[in-house]
C-alpha cells in the first residue's frame, strides 16, 4: 500500500502545483512533497522483508533499500534549495518547473522499486521527458539546443534499451519457456535462457541504459545538458537519474550472473568503465567551463561505478558505496557551482575568479566538494574508491588498478586547474557583482549534503554496510 502511495503522492502534488496560481507559494510545494515522501520511505524501510504491490511488479528488494532512500534524501536536499533558487529567478514562470520536479521524483521512486523491466523502462522514459522542461528553464538558445540533444540521444538510448528488453524476453521464449519481464522470473529461469539472445540483449541494454547513465562514448549529451541546466537540475540528474540507470543495468547484470554469463558482462563493464574515465580525463584537461567540468566528472564517476562492478567481489561493494558518496557529493558540487554562477553571471574561468572572496561559503563547499569527489580522505568517496582499488588488486588485476590510479590523477589535474582558477585569486574589477550573496536557503542544502559525505567518510553505519554487502551479493550471485 505504501509503495503505491509513494508513487502517486508526488504526481498528485505535481498536478496541485500546476494548478496553484500564486508564483510564491508554488515553489514551497516541492520541499513539502519531498519531506512527505521521505517520511513514507522511512516508514517503508522499517517493514521487514520485501514489501510488494501491483502483483509483484513493484517490490522493494535489497538493492531498492539502498537506492530509494538515497534518491529521496538527495531530492529533499535539492527541494529545500528550489524555493530560494526560484526567488532568485522571478522573471522565469515556475509553474512547469515545480510540476516537472515532482513528476521527476515520482518517476525516480518508481525506477528504484519496479521489478518489471517494462515498467522500469516506462519510468525511465517518463523521467527523461520530465527532465526536458527542467533543462529548458533558462529559455536561451544554448539550453534549447541542450534539451534537443538530450531528448534525441536519450530517446535513441531508451529505444535501444526497449529493444534489449524485448530481446531478453524473447531469450526465454526461444528456449521454450514462458516469456516474462519480471526480474524474479528472469532470474529463476536464467540458466535456461538461450545464450545468443541473452548476450545481444545485454549489449543493447548496456548501451541503452548506459546512454542514460552517461557512460562514454554515449556521454555526448551530458556536458551540454548539465552545462545549460540550472544547478539543482544538474544535481538531480547527476545524483538521481544516473543512479537509476545504473540500477537498471545492475538488474540485467543480475540476470546475466544468474545465467552464468557474469564474466562476459564484467568484461564489458571494465572496458567501458576505463573508457569513460579516460574520456572524462581528456575532456577535463583544459576545460574552462566549470559546469561542463562537473558533467565530465559525472561521466568519470559513472565509469568508476562500472569499473567497480566489473571487477566484482570487494570492488562491487565499493561501487555500491560509491553510488551513495557520488550522488551526495555531486549534489553539493552542482548547487555550489550554481551559487557561484549566480554570483558571477559567468560559467567560464575567464569570467570567474576569487570566488572565495565574493561567496565564501559556496566557494568553500565547491573546493571541499572537489577534494571529496577526487577521493581525498576524510571524505566518503575516498573510502569507496580505496575499496574499489583494494578489490582490483585483490582480484589480481594490477593493470586495471594502475590504469584506475593514473586516470584518477589525470582527472585530478584537469579538475584542479578549473576549480582552483575559479576559487582562488583576487576578483578583478571587470567582474561586476550581481548582488547575489550566500543566504541560508542557497547554502543550507549543499552544506547538509557535504556534512553527510564527511560523516560517511568517518563513520559507515553498520546496518548500511550490511545492506550494501547484501545488495552486492544479490547482484553478483543473482540470489
Amino acid at each position, binding site marked *: 500500500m505504501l509503495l503505491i502511495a509513494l508513487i502517486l503522492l508526488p504526481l498528485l502534488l505535481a498536478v496541485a502545483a500546476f494548478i496553484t496560481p500564486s508564483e510564491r507559494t508554488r515553489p514551497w510545494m516541492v520541499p513539502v512533497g519531498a519531506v512527505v515522501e521521505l517520511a513514507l520511505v522511512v516508514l517503508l524501510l522499517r517493514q521487514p522483508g520485501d514489501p510488494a504491490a501491483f502483483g509483484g511488479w513493484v517490490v522493494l528488494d535489497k538493492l531498492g533499500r539502498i537506492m530509494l532512500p538515497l534518491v529521496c534524501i538527495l531530492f529533499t536536499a535539492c527541494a529545500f534549495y528550489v524555493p530560494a533558487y526560484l526567488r532568485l529567478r522571478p522573471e522565469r514562470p515556475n509553474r512547469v518547473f515545480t510540476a516537472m520536479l515532482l513528476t521527476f521524483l515520482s518517476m525516480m521512486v518508481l525506477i528504484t522499486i519496479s521489478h518489471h523491466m517494462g515498467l522500469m523502462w516506462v519510468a525511465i522514459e517518463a523521467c527523461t521527458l520530465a527532465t526536458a522542461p527542467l533543462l529548458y528553464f533558462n529559455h536561451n538558445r544554448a539550453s534549447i539546443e541542450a534539451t534537443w540533444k538530450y531528448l534525441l540521444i536519450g530517446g535513441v538510448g531508451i529505444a535501444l534499451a526497449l529493444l534489449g528488453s524485448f530481446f531478453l524476453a524473447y531469450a526465454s521464449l526461444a528456449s521454450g519457456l514462458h516469456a516474462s519481464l519480471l526480474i524474479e522470473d528472469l532470474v529463476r529461469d536464467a540458466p535456461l535462457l538461450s545464450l545468443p539472445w541473452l548476450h545481444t540483449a545485454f549489449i543493447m541494454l548496456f548501451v541503452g541504459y548506459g546512454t542514460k547513465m552517461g557512460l562514454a562514448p554515449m556521454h555526448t549529451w551530458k556536458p551540454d545538458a548539465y552545462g545549460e541546466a540550472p544547478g539543482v537540475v544538474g544535481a538531480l540528474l547527476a545524483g538521481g537519474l544516473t543512479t537509476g540507470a545504473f540500477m537498471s543495468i545492475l538488474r540485467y547484470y543480475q540476470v546475466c550472473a544468474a545465467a552464468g554469463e557474469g564474466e562476459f558482462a564484467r568484461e564489458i563493464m571494465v572496458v567501458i568503465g576505463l573508457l569513460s574515465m579516460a574520456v572524462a580525463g581528456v575532456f577535463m584537461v583544459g576545460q574552462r567551463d566549470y559546469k561542463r567540468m562537473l558533467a565530465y566528472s559525472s561521466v568519470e564517476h559513472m565509469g568508476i561505478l562500472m569499473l567497480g562492478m566489473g571487477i566484482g567481489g570487494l570492488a562491487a561493494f565499493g561501487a555500491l558505496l560509491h553510488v551513495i558518496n557520488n550522488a551526495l557529493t555531486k549534489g553539493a558540487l552542482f548547487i555550489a557551482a550554481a551559487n557561484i554562477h549566480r554570483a558571477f553571471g559567468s560559467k567560464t574561468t575567464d569570467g570567474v575568479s576569487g570566488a572565495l572572496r565574493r561567496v565564501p561559503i559556496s566557494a568553500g563547499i565547491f573546493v571541499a566538494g572537489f577534494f571529496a569527489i577526487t577521493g581525498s*580522505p576524510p571524505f566518503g568517496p575516498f573510502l569507496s574508491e580505496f575499496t574499489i582499488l583494494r578489490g582490483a588488486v585483490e582480484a589480481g588485476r594490477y593493470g586495471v588498478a594502475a590504469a584506475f590510479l593514473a586516470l584518477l590523477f589525470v582527472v585530478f589535474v584537469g579538475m584542479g*586547474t578549473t576549480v582552483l582558477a575559479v576559487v582562488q585569486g583576487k576578483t578583478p574589477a571587470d567582474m561586476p557583482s550581481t548582488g547575489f550573496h550566500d543566504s541560508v536557503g542557497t547554502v543550507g542544502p549543499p552544506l547538509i549534503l557535504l556534512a553527510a559525505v564527511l560523516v560517511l567518510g568517518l563513520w559507515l553505519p553498520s546496518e548500511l554496510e550490511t545492506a550494501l554487502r547484501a545488495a552486492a551479493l544479490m547482484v553478483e550471485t543473482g540470489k
Partner: protein
Amino acid sequence: MMNEVILIVAIVVAGVSGLPGLLTLRDDRSGERLATGLITLAGVLASVAAVSALVAESPDELGRAWHVPGGRFGVHVDALSAMFILQIAVLSVLGAWFGLEYWPQRDHPQNGRKLRVFYGTVTAGMLLLVVARNGVLFLAGWETMALSAFFLLSTEDDKPIVRSSGFFYLLAAHAGTLCLLAMFAVFEVATGTLDLDAWPAALASPLRDAIFVLALCGFGLKAGLMPLHVWLPGAHANAPSHVSALMSGVLIKMGIYGLVRLTAACDAPPLWWGETLIVAGAVSGVLGVAFAIGQHDLKRLLAYHSVENIGIIVMGLGVAVLGRSLGRPELVALGFAGAMLHVWNHGLFKGLLFLSAGSVLHATGTREIDRLGGLLRRMPLTGLAFLVGAVAICGLPPLNGLISELFVYLGLFRTATLNDPTWLAGGLAAPALALIGALAVACFVKVFGVVFLGQPRTPDVSLAHEAGPLMLVPMALLAATCVFIGVGAPLVAPVLDAAVAAWVGTAAAPLPTLGELAPLLPVSAISAVLLVAILLAGAWIVRASRATPPPELGTWDCGYASPSPRMQYTASSFADLIVDLTGWVLRPLSHVPRLDRVFPSDASFHSHVPDIVLDKMLIPAFSIIRRIMTWLHLIQHGKLHIYLLYILGIVIALLFWWRSM
C-alpha cells in the same frame, strides 16, 4: 595507554585551535592569541606523551573499532613516533609564536584566520599520522596534513606565483597519495589486513619489492628526494615563513617517517634496498646543494637545502638498511642514529633559518638577496641567528649538524671497509657527503655575506628594523637547542639508542650502544673548548674594537673614482664559478645585454637557475599532453547526428567483440 589518550587530546586540541578564531572579527587579536595558546597546549601535551613513551614504553596500543571498510582506530606511541612527535610539537609551537608578530591578524584581515585554522589542522594531521597503526587512519592523517598544507601554502593566493606553486604542490601530494593507496592495497593482498603491525608479514611476502617501490615513490614525493622534489622549492618559497619553517622542518619528515616505518619491520631486506637509498640520498644531496647555490631567492635557496638534507637523512637510512641486510649491527646503529638525529637537527636549524629569513622578509619586504646587504648592522640578532643556523646546516663544529653527519660518515666508512660488492655505494657516498658539506659552506657563506655583510645594495634595506621579541625568542630557543645538541651529544645518545632499538624491534640481537661506536665524549669536549675559544675571541673583539678609534674611512678600493655599493659581489657573481662548473646539470639561464650601439646605454643583466626536473622535463611534457588532449576535444564537436553514430558504432563494436569471444 595513558600516552595515547594524552596524544589524542593533543590532536583534537591542535585540530580545533584555529576554529574559535573564525568567530571573532576580522582584525581582533583575541582569535590569534587563542589559537597560539591552544597550539602551545597541544604541543605540551604531545611532548609529555612522547617523553613518557620514550622513558617507559607501553607495549599495548589504544585500539577501537572504527566502522569504516578496512579501518581500525589503532593508535600507539612508540619510541619512533615519540622522536617525530617531539619535533612536530617544538616546531609548530615556536612557529605559532613567531606567527603572532610575523602574520598578525590586523595586517592580514583577508587570510589571517584561514591560516590559523589550517595551521592547527596540519599539526593535528601530522600528530595523528605518526601514531596511526592502521592503513586507513594513516591515510586520513596523511591527507589531512597534505590538504591543510596546501591551504597554508596558498594563503596569499592573490599572487599568481603562489597559486601556481600551490597547484604543483597539490599535484605532487595527490600523486604521492595515489602511490600510497596502491601500496596499502598491495599490502593488504600480501597480509590480508590493513593494520600496520602486519608490516613484517608484508615484507616477507613476494610482493615486498612492489611495496618498497610504491612506498619509495609515495614517501619520496612528500620528502622531496631529488627527482620527486619538483614541488618543494616553489612551495617553501611562497608560503608564509613560519609555515615554510614548519613544512621544511617537519612536514617533509613525514615522508622519512613513512620510509622508517616501512623498513623497520624488515629483518633481512634485499641488498638493493639499502643501495638504492644510499644512491638516492647522495644524488639528492649533491644536486640539491648544487641547485641551491644557483638561487637568488632566499627562501628558494633554503628549500633546495631541505632537499640536500633529506638526501643526507636517506643516506643514513640506507646505511642502516644495508646493515640489516648484511647483519652488521654497528652499521644499523650508526646509520639509523645518524638519520634520526639529522631529522631532528634539520628540523631545528632549517626552522631557525626559515624564521630568520622570515624576519628579513618582514623587515625589508623582498626575498631577492641581490637587493639586500649590510643587514647585520640593522638586524644584529636576526643576523646572529641566521649565522648560527648557517654554521649548523653546514655541519661545522661546535653545532649539532656535525654530530649527525659524523654518525653518517662513520656508517659510510664502515660500509666502505666491507669486502663484498656493496662497498662501492658506501665508498662513493662518503666523498659525496664531503662535497655536499663543502658546497653547503660555499652556499651559506654566499647567502650570509651577500645579505648581512658589506654595504646595503638598494634602499630596501634602509627601512629594515630588528624583529620584535615574539620573533626573536623562538629563534633564540632554536639556536640554543642547536648549540646544546652540538655540545651535549652524549646526553642525546640514550634517546637515539631507544629509537634504534624500537626501529630494529625486539627480535634482533642486542645492539651496540652509540657510546661505543661513536666518539661522543671527545667530540663534545672539543666542541666545548671551541665554544669557549669563540667566546674568548668575541670578548677580545669587543675590547679591540672599543680600544681602536671609530673607523671613518671606507674600504680601500684601489683609488676607484666613484665606488658604489652595487660594485660588491652579488649572489650570481659569487656563485658564477660553481654554476659554470655544474652547468651541465643546472642549465643556468642568463640574460646578457648586447652592447650594439656606440654610446653605452643602460643595460640589465639577469640570470637564474631553472629547476631541471620541473622546468625542463615536467612542464614541457605536461604541455605536450595538454595539447594532445585539447586536440582530442574534437570528438565533442556539437553535431547531433555524429553523436548518434557513436551509439550505433559502440553497439556494433560490442557485437563484433562478442562474436569474436
